[in-house]
């Protein structure tokens, strides 16, 4: 009986130790994964991304954007390329008229914060002494994302 009791106590101690260990392990894992998964989940929200530039006129103020529910979204999309109309883009980001080639817009990162999705874009300029084509154009990015109404666009 004493042995059984001792055995039970040993087993319970070990069980508790293991549990604590497993719990700690699990907690750590969960903590780490939660920390990364916010961005991963946010990136998963970008179903489609296309960045380029166009000579055509896009009627959006510089460093601004349109979502598909905006009045001029379809018209501007058609001006860029009528083929894009079937692509389900719902976000258009524009960095304004540039004097030549060599300028572009890039999606740097997407961060989910609270209930909003932050899309960080970067204006790329031509490298110094780069050869350029002196025709005005407008760099843009087209995206298909979840909840464009919750998107916050930051252009640097």
């Amino acid at each position, binding site marked *: 009986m004493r042995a059984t009791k001792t055995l039970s106590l040993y087993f319970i101690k070990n069980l508790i130790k293991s549990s604590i260990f497993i719990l700690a392990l699990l907690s750590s894992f969960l903590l780490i994964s939660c920390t990364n998964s916010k961005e991963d989940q946010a990136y998963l929200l970008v179903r489609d991304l296309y960045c380029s530039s166009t000579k055509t006129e896009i009627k959006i103020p510089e460093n601004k954007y349109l979502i598909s529910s905006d009045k001029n979204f379809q018209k501007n999309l058609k001006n860029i390329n009528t083929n894009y109309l079937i692509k389900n883009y719902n976000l258009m980001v524009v960095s304004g008229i540039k*004097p030549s080639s060599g300028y572009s817009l890039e999606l740097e990162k997407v961060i989910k914060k609270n209930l909003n999705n932050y899309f960080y874009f970067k204006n790329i300029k031509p490298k110094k002494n780069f050869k350029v084509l002196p025709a005005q154009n407008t760099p843009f990015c087209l995206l298909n994302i979840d909840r464009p109404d919750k998107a916050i666009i930051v252009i640097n």
Partner: protein
Amino acid sequence: MQKKITKLLSILLLPLILSACGGGGGGGGGGAAGGALTVPTCSDTGTAFQTNEYYTIGNSSGGRNNQLELICASSAYARGATGDGIKIAVVDTGGPWSAAGNINNLEFDSDATEILKPNNSDYANSDSIPDDQEATHGHGVGVACMIRCDKGDGDMHGVAYDATLNFYKVFDDSGNFVSDSVAANAINDADSNDIINNSWGTGSGHGCADASTCEALIGSNLYAAMKTATGTNGKILVWAAGNESNDNPMPEANAVVHDTDLQGLTVVVVSVDATNADFDLGDEDGKIAEHSNRCGTAATYCIAAPGGNITTVSRQGGTTFLGANGTSFAAPLVSGGLALIKQEFSSLTNAQVVTRLLNTALDTGEYSQSSIYGHGLMNLNAATTTIAKLQTVSGSNLLDDPNTSYYDLKDSSFVSSAAFSNALTKALKNKTMEVYDSFDRANFTVNIDSFFSSGSNTSENTIENHISRLRAREINNKTHHENLYGNFTVETRGNYIQNSIFKSSNDFLILGYNQTTNSFENDLNPMIKFFNNNNFGNDYLLNPYFNSGSGQDYFMSINTKNEIGIDTFTSAAGGDLGLALNLSPNSVNNNNENSSNLQMVLGTKFENNKFLNSYTSGVFGTGDLSNTNFTGFQYKKSFNEDFTIFGSGYAGYTHIDETSNSYINNSEPLLTSTLTMGFTKNKFLKDDQMLGLFLNQPQRVEEGSINLRVPTSSDSTRTVKYTNYNIDLEPDGRQINYDLVFNKSISDLTNFSLNLTHVRNGDHSKNESNQNFISLFYKKSY
């Protein structure tokens, strides 16, 4: 406390004081309006070419644009300039080809021989298909369209719509430029074309300060290729100035300032806004586009063209057209403009083409600001027409030879005799020759017959002349002196001797001045009763090879029977000299019985700068001693005193004296003839009535030709080619004049005349309409 209140009040009042001081300056802003410069426009005159395509109002071109009108391109088109045969290199992102190498744009499919991809012309991908890509959004295609989008398909067309384009791709499919050495290879290959369009450049280092700085920015291999293209191979480099709104162009465009190898054949292009465009991309004021770099330090080599708010074609398809902004699109308009000038003037070198482009730019008003616009706005109307004055060339077949002679157009002319004017006019119809602008010897084509005018027999058959023929002769002041040695009669008009005649007492010698001593002509001339010869050219019985009446004519007879006479004349104005020997084997019988008179004529005439009374000058000039030897006869026979028959005939043989450097050379001698016959009847039906019938063939070339050796083409080696036109001067018809004249003397003071004239084949032309005249003359003196 007081101090605090004072401090507080000061702080409160300070803004009021400051605003009061600034308020007085508010009125100064209104003074700047008086200095505004107007924006001039060139005169665009080729209305037949100002189609919907010209204004890009095509089937689907997106609307109106006046990018071609602003540079007056239609004026050049009206002169035949289209860019045909001129090769232009488009060094850019590629051309209108698919990856498989097929043309994929309807604006470039009219002539496959004019849209070319040379071997290995894709320098970015090392292949032979320089296809333009979406990533560079069809930049190369858009640039090429400004030069040579097709004409005739209803949308829009380029400025040099018939030029040949060769494409060289130097940007990869991501828009990155090739390496310096590869770019140099592209330029080296591109300079097999006459004009190389470069709508690209280094985006920094504007207005590079010296050659080495420019070279460092451009790339040493590329820089060397640029110098080879211009300095060694004489090709034209056209550079877009850039879009950074900088005071100076990009380095590639600015390098010309510091390097003589680039000068004379480099053109820098800045951009102005189109003024009437449906795309809303610019200020539409014709001024420097906001994006454009200025000419700055490169002003001497710089010109402006539309590049703001212009229309061009999209990359693929050729049915979608875009509005665009950039010096990228201004440069190809200048490249195309250079092609039009080069095609129009084959005699110009490439450097002269550039000089002509820059010197004819619109440079008044707004465009007078050379630091912005350089030479001004391109003006293709002025560039394709005369800058100084047109001249003919002679003496050499090299335009720049010091031995070459040039005449202003007004100093070269040929007024042809009626004896052959018809033949000459027909032969020269639609034949052209070259003349040259004294500014740069640019060659222009003119009709040869613009230098020629024609003498005409039929033009003399006017109503006024017919009336004048029938009018009684004027009686001038005439005095007569007589002494032992002879008698002397002189006729004066004003203070000048009109004519005079001296007859020795024994009639051995008769001397005349402007009055013939010829017995045949002075004796009872049946013509005189009918015609007032002074006012009509058909002097039927007079020697047609003499220029009598227009100069100083001297006459002499040397025997009592007037059987031998010598007529001479000189023409004071023209330096002509003539001599005729008259032989009259029959004597004159004045006793009103049957009589006859025959005179044989033999003579010669020398003409100065003319032949057969055709006046020549300048490049059509003839020499001092054109010579006509002539012979002829005059005959009349009277029956009683009532009926007279008469006739005359002359033939001449003319040798044309040629001068060096004249276009008239290697001419055949001319054989000419004239003929007259007729009769007169006094007491026709009644004693106071006369009737005369006259037939006359005016002087006519029967045989002979002239050779015209005229410049008809020239090339950029400044060499002129001549063409020979051998012109047969025998007309295709023979003019015959028929005159029927009736006179009635009603009284000593009253006279009535009726004249019917029929001219057949006037001016010796089969195609000339016959002429018929009827004139009446009635005179009553009181």
